């Protein structure tokens, strides 16, 4: 202001349109504090990847693969790190978990979303949430002290074959249904050739899984040994119970996203509730349901304590291809390495082997989660 006398009394200056400096500085300080908080998350992921890669690399370059190649089993203290042993055990546990959690979780979700009235829902949902909140060590205890003797212990040769057949037939029926829609898509000659490749590939995958699972079931049946102590089967069922709420809640979210107008349209055409649920709602929510299964698989692979406690193997494991045997999954192998003497010690590369398995686990679960989020966003786009 050089000459205020000329200025109109109503006139404002830029200075009058500013707030007190103390308020302004506080804004800046808080903003940067919050930026730091947000960057911590980036730092955490960097640290995860960095620490995994660093030790895993030492393991990869240091371990003498040729010496132990072809030898099955996980005996880290003897320098035998056979990755297939723990990966196969992880697959067995995850497979059993999904056989338990898939139908139960999905069935519960369909019931809650399509049949249950408000009052029933207001009791059932919290019950499922309580199950979701039970720590995995509790399931580990339950799997070892109750599931192993009372469920797995009662499975004999014949029961196993019947169970296997029922599961395989169920799988085959669902696959046939899926394959039919895929074949229809293929026949309709979608202009997009990648859709055709996708249809062929998914059918092939269903068939391959069926053949492998069938052969494996037969093999286990032939060499069946009953077991009522800790086993991969007991651990698998425990992990399955743990993942039921996960499957249920994600599938239910997906079905809740299906607009009611679709249900009304179906009912308006005279469809029954079952028809509406199975041929309108489920197909419309299929992406979300697939996402639920993938997330559950990821969770099951990463579950540690149930297998560590109820898997029937201590700090080393022979190669197990039957769920009735004890075994170490990738996660349980890590926990047992660390717990044996209350700290990670061991000959040579034991410490580094932890990180190699950890890296493997990290990559598997990360890719599963990324695939699942793709499916989830598909549902969001659709409605």
């Amino acid at each position, binding site marked *: 202001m050089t000459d205020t006398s000329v*200025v109109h009394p*109503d006139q404002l200056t830029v200075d009058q349109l500013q*707030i*007190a400096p103390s308020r302004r500085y506080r804004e800046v300080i808080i903003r940067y504090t919050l930026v730091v908080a947000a960057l911590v998350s980036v730092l955490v992921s960097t640290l995860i990847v960095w620490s995994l890669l660093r030790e895993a690399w030492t393991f990869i370059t240091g371990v003498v693969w040729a010496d132990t190649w072809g030898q099955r089993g996980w005996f880290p203290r003897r320098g035998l790190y056979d990755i297939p042993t723990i990966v196969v055990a992880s697959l067995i546990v995850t497979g059993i978990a999904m056989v338990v959690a898939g139908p139960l979780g999905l069935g519960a979700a369909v019931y809650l979303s399509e049949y249950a009235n408000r009052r029933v829902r207001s009791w059932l949902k919290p019950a499922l949430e309580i199950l979701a909140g039970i720590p995995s060590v509790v399931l580990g205890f339950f799997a070892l002290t109750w599931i192993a003797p009372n469920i797995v212990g009662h499975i004999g040769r014949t029961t196993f074959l019947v169970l296997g057949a029922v599961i395989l037939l169920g799988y085959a029926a669902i696959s046939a249904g899926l394959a039919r829609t895929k074949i229809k898509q293929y026949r309709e000659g979608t202009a997009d050739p990648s859709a055709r490749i996708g249809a062929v590939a998914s059918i092939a995958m269903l068939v391959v899984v069926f053949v492998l699972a069938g052969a494996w079931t037969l093999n286990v049946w032939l060499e069946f040994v009953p077991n009522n102590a800790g086993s991969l089967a007991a651990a698998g069922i425990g992990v399955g119970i743990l993942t039921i709420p996960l499957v249920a809640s994600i599938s239910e979210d997906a079905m809740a996203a299906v607009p009611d107008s679709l249900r009304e349209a179906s009912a308006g055409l005279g469809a029954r509730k079952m028809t509406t649920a199975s041929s309108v709602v489920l197909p419309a929510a299929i992406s979300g349901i697939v996402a639920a299964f993938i997330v559950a698989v990821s969770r099951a692979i990463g579950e540690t304590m149930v297998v560590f406690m109820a898997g029937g193997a201590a700090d080393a494991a022979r190669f197990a291809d039957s769920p009735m045997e004890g075994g170490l999954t990738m996660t349980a192998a890590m926990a047992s390495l660390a717990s044996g003497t209350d700290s990670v010690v061991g000959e040579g590369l034991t410490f580094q082997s932890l990180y190699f398995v950890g890296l493997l686990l990290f990559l598997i679960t990360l890719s599963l989660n990324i695939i699942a989020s793709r499916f989830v966003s598909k549902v969001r786009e659709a409605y």
Partner: protein
Amino acid sequence: MSMTDEAPRLIERPVAASGEATPAPGMAPLATERDVVFQSQDVSVYYGSFRAVRDVTFDVPKNEIMALIGPSGCGKSTVLRCYNRMNDLIENARVTGSITYRGTDLYDERVDPVEVRRRIGMVFQKPNPFPKSIYDNVAYGPRVAGQKKGLDDIVENSLRKAALWEEVNDRLNDSALGLSGGQQQRLCIARAIAVGPDVLLMDEPCSALDPIATARIEDLMQEIKQDYTIMIVTHNMQQAARVSDTTAFFTADVRSENDTRTGILVEVDTTQKIFSNPSDERTENYVTGRFG
């Protein structure tokens, strides 16, 4: 820094010696129609690359009520929100052109939008009292501005000005959410007044209210206009005709080739002229109900 260059622009049609003749603040206004609070020049608003409003130019006279009318989607609310920089809160919104507020460029980089909003209050379409007591709602603005003493007086004066004091003075500590819709909206006016603004922007303040509550708000606007310059966006032409001194009519310029609508200003004039003898055919069609 000198503001002398800006001064002549403020008074568009200067009366003789208006500078000396203007009465002290708070006294009855004299010849204020020539005092201008806002001058907008070629104002356009963009959302990303989409131009929502283009080339709006008009002045807002002091201590008058100006109504912004037009069909929905013509950008009148968007224009209103330029005057207290509410559009700054929308991430990709951008305002071009110039708006001066009492001689100062509102969009000068040294101007703090927080202070702008204190001086230029806003009342929103839906009554939005905070989930606090009536007292705390009114005292909110002064408190964030750092005021700690004299809040009781501010609350009482603001509620009196908003014609709400008689109805709530015995329950100032009750939740504001317990008030009726019309009372809530008057509370929001009191809340806006409490920080001592000189302009009130009202974005369809009565659209969620019943006719009786609407009438009360309209009366209130007439009572407070001696102290405040008011800009009101309204859907309701009768309301514009009833309450405003000047009216700006906006419409949407629809481009069928790329399916975009851009708001444009058609004309600004005294309310009487707009509703009786508009100079633009589009205005006439709108106010006579043939369009919109």
